[in-house]
């Protein structure tokens, strides 16, 4: 498979790694300092709201990763450039992990806030379904042995899933208005204090840097796989 990457692009991907790793670690150090020490506790939720600084970025990136997954699948259909198929399956695993993290941290946050580990709240439920969409995508890709075919099929599934997300969200929201017990307080207050914005911003940046790091490593794996395949073909 021709990856259609220029040497310059490959060079950037290969060279960027040490820089990315260092900046991720630095950003997380700052992020932890701000989120655990610098920022004040929330006056309603107390210190427990510090979980937000990891929960919110992972939830954002879980959703963003699925958007990238579906977007690159669409682009793959239009251009047939294999790089989009590689982007799609590289981002899928990362997205699934972030969905898992946001579910678990959300649940841990829920215990002190709502008094229960899990609430059948619209957001949590849709997130849970998103996790299974990721899982289906990855399983389907793995279970088809012909990888050329697998990338075509899983791209179709990614798009179907993306079409389905708003429908799922809509139906879960609607269902929630029927079943939601009224006692539960809202997660996010409408305005966040500036002292909380800073750690949230730094943690988001750090998480983003981490995502890019892993993403580049996965791209390098694909590039090497491609090289190995070509050498074997020549032999």
């Amino acid at each position, binding site marked *: 498979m021709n990856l259609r990457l220029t040497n310059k692009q490959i060079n950037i991907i290969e060279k960027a790694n040490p820089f990315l790793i260092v900046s991720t670690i630095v950003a997380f150090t700052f992020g932890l300092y701000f989120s655990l020490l610098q920022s004040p506790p929330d006056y309603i939720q107390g210190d427990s709201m510090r979980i937000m600084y990891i929960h919110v970025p992972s939830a954002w990136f879980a959703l963003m990763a699925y958007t990238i997954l579906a977007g690159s699948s669409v682009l793959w259909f239009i251009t047939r450039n294999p790089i989009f198929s590689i982007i799609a399956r590289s981002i899928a695993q990362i997205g699934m992990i972030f969905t898992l993290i946001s579910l678990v941290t959300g649940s841990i946050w829920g215990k002190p806030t709502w008094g229960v580990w899990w609430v059948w709240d619209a957001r949590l439920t849709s997130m849970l*379904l998103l996790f*299974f*969409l990721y*899982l*289906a995508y990855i*399983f*389907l890709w793995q*279970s*088809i*042995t*012909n990888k050329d*075919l697998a990338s*075509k*099929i899983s791209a*179709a*599934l990614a798009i*179907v*899933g993306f*079409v*389905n997300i708003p*429908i*799922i969200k*809509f*139906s*879960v929201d*609607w*269902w929630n208005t*029927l079943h939601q017990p009224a006692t539960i307080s809202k997660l996010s207050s409408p305005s966040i204090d500036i002292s909380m914005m800073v750690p949230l911003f730094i943690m988001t940046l750090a998480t983003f840097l981490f995502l890019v790091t892993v993403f580049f490593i996965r791209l390098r794996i694909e590039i090497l796989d491609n090289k190995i395949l070509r050498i074997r073909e020549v032999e």
Partner: protein
Amino acid sequence: MLALLKRDLYLALYSSSSFFYTSSFFVLVLIILPFLFGTNNVQLQVLFKGIIWIGLSLSILLTMERIFNADYEDGNLDIIIQRYPSLETIIISKYITHWVVYCLPLFIILPILSFLFYVSLDNFFLIFLNLLFGSFGMVFIVTFVSALTLGAKRTIFLKAIIVIPLFVPFLIFGTNLESWPILLALSMMSFVLSMYVSAYGLRLYVE
């Protein structure tokens, strides 16, 4: 089109037990209810609304291998595509057969079952309508998933993981008695999606 439909229906007729499999399965899923939750009339009525959807989803899900997989694996799909090159015709014929063979029997026994679970006549009609419109959409969904996963290793669990999140909207609206227009809309949407995706999947595997 008619010939294909006839062929699919005859195929189901020859393996005649398939009509009874799903309806017996459906009945058995429902009669577990009193054993699990007691014989309280009011409670049973509430549970009945939900469990019929589980029964319907499972019977559609468990039989989805018969839509394309069987014909694909023994080579009949090639013959069908050679003779009837319009994939859309093949897909529509599969929708109809699958619905008639695996959903229709459930609707035939539904009146008796709702009688056993003390459902009032008004509610019965609404439940019936919901289930009817929902079942169309669910058949469309399993059809395209089974077309997409033709080449995957034979795992019903993988298919279940793909299908159940897609079923969720149907199940959510299905348990509400007045939402049959929404179910109809959902079914129409899944019809459009399913036509495209199934044809795409079939085309890939035939090549």
